[in-house]
């Protein structure tokens, strides 16, 4: 039996299509970052970090399963089919998560930018009018707090490190910067979500909140703030070769035996 199951939901009076885009974007984000995190299992720089990255991956993929479950309930599709049986260009995770595992500094930089973005997004959903998502986000916030403590400690440690650690962090931030704000790519049908009270504010406003939230940390660590997203309309598309490789990894078992049960 799969971890993800469709949820029976009433769709009356819901902006179903826009809600599907929101759930799909969130689920793909969590699924892709969890899959990237899991690449450290067995090869992280410290034993504690091996355990931590594996646990983070388990959390994120669990969150993805719950979100795909809601999306499955909304659309009548099998959540595993949504998670695994799409072509790479059909995924809608943010381009921030498209840069490959890289070194440890790259992983920390990507996690820091993602976790802080996700915190702002969750904050805009916990009080929402659609109970299944608002309830789930209320629970996710409690778990993500540990993720933020972990990544903030590492982000600060690398930034304070002389020479190599700081240089690697700066290099990673420079690579990620064109896509740093891509979690906040406006969603198709987004105004309907805001109007229905499911999402507290448009993505452009959430991005502004995120930037003012991280600015003091970047200033204190003397790091350059990420510039505006380079191609805002394409923030969840055009995923590139690194993601094509990751896609081949995470659905390998599924493709070899679609009926497999584990």
């Amino acid at each position, binding site marked *: 039996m799969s971890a993800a199951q469709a949820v029976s*939901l009433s769709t009356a009076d819901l902006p179903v299509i826009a809600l599907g885009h929101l759930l799909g974007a969130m689920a793909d984000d969590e699924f892709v970052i969890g899959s990237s995190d899991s690449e450290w299992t067995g090869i992280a720089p410290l034993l504690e970090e091996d*355990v931590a990255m594996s646990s983070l991956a388990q959390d994120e993929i669990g969150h993805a399963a719950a979100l795909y479950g809601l999306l499955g309930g909304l659309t009548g599709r099998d959540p595993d089919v949504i998670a695994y049986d799409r072509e790479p260009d059909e995924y809608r995770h943010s381009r921030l998560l498209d840069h490959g595992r890289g070194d440890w500094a790259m992983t920390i930089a990507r996690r820091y930018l993602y976790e802080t973005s996700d915190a702002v997004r969750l904050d805009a959903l916990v009080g929402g009018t659609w109970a299944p998502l608002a309830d789930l986000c209320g629970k996710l916030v409690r*778990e993500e707090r540990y993720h933020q403590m972990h990544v903030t400690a590492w982000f600060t440690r690398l930034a304070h490190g002389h020479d190599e650690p700081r240089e690697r962090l700066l290099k990673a931030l420079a690579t990620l910067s064109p896509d740093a704000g891509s979690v906040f790519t406006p969603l198709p049908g987004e105004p309907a979500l805001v109007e229905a009270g499911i999402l507290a504010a448009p993505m452009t406003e959430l991005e502004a909140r995120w930037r003012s939230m991280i600015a003091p940390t970047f200033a204190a660590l003397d790091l350059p703030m990420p510039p505006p997203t380079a191609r805002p309309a394409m923030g969840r598309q055009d995923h590139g070769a690194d993601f094509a490789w990751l896609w081949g990894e995470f659905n390998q078992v599924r493709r070899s035996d679609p009926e497999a049960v584990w």
Partner: protein
Amino acid sequence: MSEAGIQIGIARARSGATGGSGTVPRIDEAAVRLALAEVMDPELPMVSIVEMGMVGEVAVGPTIRVDLLPTFVGCPALELIGAAVVARLAAFGRPVEVRATFVVPWTSERITPDGLAALAAAGIAPPTSLEDTRCPHCASALVVRDSLFGPTQCRSLFYCRSCRQPFEALKIV
């Protein structure tokens, strides 16, 4: 089925009525909760799911319905727990429906005093702030947190500088 109820993972785990002419125990909510107190957490087998605070609403009707509050959204033990609940309640001779819900979020404050005592006896410290964490082996306050993340999603790793033993503590969730 409540529309607001989120079901994941173990949604719709059901047992058939067992039927038969054997003695069927008295059925009410208290009896069901008493039976659930015998279902242990697979990842922390010294505490029951009742002591962990994982049992939410229990409704006894033609079907026995049990709401479970997952400790973590991605808890991999959820299916096992759902199956154990169904197996334990089969003796009541009615269909059992178990569903996971986040309507009431599980928090570490839901663990009962008995549950905390059983965890401490097994060397797992209760969910407290870093300053208040004591070594479960020697009660020393000279402890350091080695890692926020431990062997399961709900635990962190600590080290006691007094008795020089590693130990685990539940996360504050």
